[in-house]
């Protein structure tokens, strides 16, 4: 009798537990449907960009951009209301992943994106600048500016780093690895779908053709062979960093935060990209130099030489930063320790240098 009661209790508890979880799942799904239906509060950059590209629901889409840069309007099939909202959400994720600009209610529209990145600084537009579509005043796209549309037309192609045929969703997963805190969104997550929708829209607006390689796609990488082979030197890199970069990114590379908003992102420490990232010079030594040379310092892009950029990237790779996912718990703990121990030591060493006579600049 007692055992039968115990069995009933066991089954009852299991049913209550699973039923409760099912109800939670249903509630979460309803919330997601509701978010999908509500109008999107765009960030200023996204608003300007999407208006300039004439994003609206309709049977056909003609990009105003093509006419503006002196080409012919191309007619492609249009977007539904739901598509438009997905594209808008995608733009918000790219431009303002942490929700600094359009925060509050709009945060739910980012599908908890901050859950998947480490620290409080990371936003897609740190690398994919101007909401993933960087242009000069005349509307010319810039070589090596990580254009998302140009990236989308390269989807489902061979990726030389992973050796896989990467879909755009899997390619985005690579981005999450760069500043991962251990877990990545599921490949079916709306987070990836919305960014894909936005990237695809950029490709349509710029009339980029599928399967083509455009110069604005990716970083314009700088291999050692593209320099005059003086050799990479992090001491020189540290010097250039202090002269050119430290005023914004800080002496220790911790970035600049004002009123809870990131003005300049961290390039070292907790809020920075991880050791596994392709931005880490020690992992891939061509990408970070390429990014620096094409995009830094803002307003004076292109003033640094290839070797300078390699030196700076080398120096950055020596600063303490979080371990990547693949390096295991021991490495992660070690890096955490280094991020606590090294900054005061570096600050102390810097204070010694500033009190001694300045070396003659070369």
């Amino acid at each position, binding site marked *: 009798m007692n055992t039968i009661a115990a*069995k009933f209790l*066991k*089954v009852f508890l*299991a*049913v209550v537990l*699973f039923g409760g*979880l*099912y109800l*939670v*799942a*249903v509630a*979460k*799904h309803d919330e*997601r449907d509701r978010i999908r239906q509500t109008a999107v509060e765009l960030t200023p950059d996204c608003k300007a960009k999407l208006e300039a590209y004439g994003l609206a629901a309709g049977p056909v889409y003609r990009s105003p951009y093509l006419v503006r840069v002196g080409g012919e309007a191309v007619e492609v099939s249009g977007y539904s209301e739901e598509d438009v909202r997905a594209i808008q959400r995608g733009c918000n994720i790219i431009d303002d992943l942490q929700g600094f600009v359009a925060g509050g209610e709009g945060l739910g529209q980012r599908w*908890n994106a901050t*859950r998947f990145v480490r620290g409080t600084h990371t936003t897609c537009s740190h690398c994919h600048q101007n909401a993933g579509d960087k242009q000069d005043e005349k509307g010319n796209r810039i070589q090596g500016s990580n254009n998302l549309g140009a990236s989308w037309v390269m989807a489902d192609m061979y990726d030389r780093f992973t050796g*896989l045929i990467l879909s755009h969703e*899997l390619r985005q*997963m690579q981005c999450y*690895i760069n500043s991962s805190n*251990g*877990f*990545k*969104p*599921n*490949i*079916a*997550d*709306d987070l990836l779908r919305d960014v894909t929708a936005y990237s695809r829209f950029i490709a349509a607006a710029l009339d980029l053709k599928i399967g083509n390689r455009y110069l604005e796609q990716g970083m314009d990488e700088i291999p050692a062979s593209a320099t005059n082979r003086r050799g990479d030197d992090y001491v020189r890199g540290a010097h250039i960093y202090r002269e050119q970069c430290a005023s914004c990114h800080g002496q220790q590379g911790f970035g600049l935060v004002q009123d809870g908003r990131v003005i300049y992102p961290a390039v070292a420490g907790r809020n920075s990209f991880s050791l596994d990232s392709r931005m880490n010079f020690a992992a891939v030594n061509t990408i970070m130099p390429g990014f620096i040379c094409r995009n830094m310092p803002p307003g004076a892009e292109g003033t640094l030489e290839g070797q300078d950029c390699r030196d700076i990237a080398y120096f950055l790779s020596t600063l303490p930063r979080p371990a990547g*996912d693949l390096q295991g*718990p021991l490495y992660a703990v070690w890096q955490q320790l280094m991020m606590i121990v090294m900054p005061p030591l570096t600050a102390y060493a810097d204070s010694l240098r500033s009190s001694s006579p300045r070396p003659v600049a070369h």
Partner: protein
Amino acid sequence: MPPLRGTFVVGLTLAVVTLPQAIAFSTTLAGLPPHFGIYAAIWGVLFTALLNPSSVFSGGPNTTMSAAIGITLLPIAPQFGADYIGYALTLILLAGLVQMLFVLIRPLGRTLDLINEPIVNGLICGIGVFLICKSLTSFAGLPINTQVEWPLWIAWQSFVAVLEIGNLYAIEIGLVTLITSLVVRQWRPLRNWAILLGVVAGTAYSEYLSATVGIQNTLIEQIANLSYVGFVLPSLPSFSQEAMADIITILPGAVTLALLGLFQTVAAMRRMNRKMGSYTDSRKGILADAVSNCVLPFLSSLPTCASFNRMWLVFSLGGHSRWASAVSALILLLMVLYLAPLIAIIPMPAMAAIIMLLGANMINWEDIKPHFKDRREAVVFMASFLSVLFLDLFGAVIVGSLLAIAYSKWEQAHPNISLSGNVLKIRGNLYYGSLPVIEAMYHRAIAQDDRVVIDFSECFYIDQEGIRWLAAAKAAQHVRLADRRRSDDRRAIERRAAADGKRRTGRRSSKVDRRKRSEF
């Protein structure tokens, strides 16, 4: 040969119980097409039944080994692809060859006996937790990420994904399967059929959804076409030039796979031997596994090893003959040949629910409870359990093996030493590992008293270093040795020792010890 009818009933039950497990293991754990599990349940079971003389031994596909294949190969190639299958076959063959080493090198095979219960139970519990976390994504009809979601602190993220973006139809099918199985297994006569009935209920609900909502809306993944499955499906492991770099990276995985199989086979045989009061040499089980796993990759099959739950099933049904397993393999072959269209509509979420249930079954409090009564056992159990959760499987197996050796050595290295008056009494082993402990006490004794008697009458084992130490101690004028096992009195021993020299004393005492041991 036992009564034909009884054997048939046991075989039929075994076949019906194994089928859903076999499919679930290959599709949700190993990332291989369903026929891999089915062939393992046919050929793996048949080979081990023929090669292993144990009367209740039942081989076939195994949860842990399937999971190990999935974990090892996930970063290497996309699952279910041609490359992946090639690598999987290579991995299984390598594991079979590693197992063959355990047959050929006798001491290596003997080391498996050092794996004690807390370690095996720790591994099993850890893998149970892992299986539950691992099947969360397929439970909710979500794709598996390419990154291995192995550590526990990442798995909760999959759980959140299930709640937020899971396919609700998939979740419903999974829950129907889970709850049906849970309810059915409470009733003892149907206990062994719980999994099958759960799958039937899940499939029925999935068919209902397909009829009302439409499969184009539910987007439920199914086992799909099995019509290509025939009597045998030959396959070749890939050893091509371009695969070599990847094959080298999966070598630790092959060792893990081999060890996980052997651990379970040896532990299961040991447990069943004691349960049945009979004895079958576990070496024969190792041989059966090794030979099977060297042949199975050429037959499109998962690797085989002992299955605790199926052996328990055979035992409880009274199948005291290995013909039952062989018959089950043949029945399964017939079922697959004629029931393929029915198997094809089984939904994947139901398979995932089955894996979760098996994972939960692996965490059995009744098995674990005794380990917490002894502190040393508790430490070993927890270390083994946690290393599965915080390291990868290879790390866990290595930690488990090292722990096993450390455990046994620690036992031996702490003989019971007592000092009463000037008599130093040693009970236990006198060998290089225990000498430091003994020497510490010895030096305390000679500091207290200038005449010391070392009584090693209750030493069971003395190695060469121990003999040399005893001889050196004897050389000191104020120390006398005592061995009360001899019929002569202690003085006679000493006289002889003085006359015969140092080596002789040692040899005598070790001879005594050998004679003593043979009495037990």
